[in-house]
């Protein structure tokens, strides 16, 4: 099988730009890829737990925007606030 061109995708919850898969692909459902930044998992948080990306973002910010993954480190000079604002604008809504 031909491998798709490697392109990175943005987390719909926190705006992290390094996801390997489209969070909600055209084939339906979620990618199941857990965002290493905020832990959001399309196909699980939304479809099973009923937590929208924006609600997850709100909770994650309230929790202090912790980096989620133990295996994937945060990028150098990572700024959660800057990332959210870049993706969703000021206030991150």
């Amino acid at each position, binding site marked *: 099988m031909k491998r798709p061109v490697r392109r990175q995708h943005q987390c719909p919850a926190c705006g992290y730009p390094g996801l390997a898969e489209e969070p909600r692909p055209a*084939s*339906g*459902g979620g990618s199941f890829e*857990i965002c290493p930044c905020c832990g959001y998992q399309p*196909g699980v948080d939304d*479809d*099973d737990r009923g937590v929208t990306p924006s609600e997850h973002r709100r909770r994650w910010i309230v929790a202090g925007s912790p980096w989620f993954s*133990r295996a994937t480190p945060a990028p150098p000079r990572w700024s959660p606030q800057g990332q959210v604002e870049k993706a969703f604008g000021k206030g991150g809504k």
Partner: protein
Amino acid sequence: MRSAPAILPAGSATCHSAGFGGLVTLLLLLVVTGRAEVRLVQGPAVTVTGTNAVIHWVTDTPAGGRVRFGNAPGRWDQRAQGPVGTNHAVTLDRLKPGTMYHFTVGTARLPLATNSFATSGPGSFEPTATSGKTENPDGPQAARPPPARVTWGSLRTLEDHFDRHGADFRAASSEDYAGQAWTFLVRAIREGLPAKQDTAGVIRVFDPQAGAFAAYNPDGTTKTYFKPGRRGYFNDQPGDSVDLRSLDHFRPPQ
């Protein structure tokens, strides 16, 4: 032709943990603790005597003991139960001689583990008198899984999936978790568990009895493995229903 074994009433199974007073306490405890998750601590072990079998197991909290059983893995068409307790012993009697039985133990709501045994007597194979080894819910025939670097789709994500979902399967490590996801696929193909394939070739599998769900890439590597909390989750997933037993090019990675 096989005769159905008798199903025991609750009182005829033995429970070593409590007398009547203790039982009342345990029931009260259950009411107080609500739907606290019951975990398997030990077993299930089986003692076979002729055409009777006693299934033993231990749970960490008091729970009703339920055994579902039948003559094929996953086909639990008969059942027996014991009283509330932690130390469970449920007797299945008047079984067919020389016959293989597969069973799950657990509560009325929650299957905890599976095992199998054979009754004594003339039959299609040599019976085993006692079978005491613990097996995972994916059945006695499950082979040893290859390492996670072979079975997991995106290895850098495995730790995160284990951190989030490993507890659903009491996985001891990320390697164990990935191995369980692979074993689940092996069993899903063997038993023809409900499955869907979407237009990208992703396979989603659900075991309604265990409440386990997994998604696999077209090459058979695992995307995720967890227990959904929402009823209807699998039904709402995309894709067309497929029979995994007849999908020629879809195999667990080796």
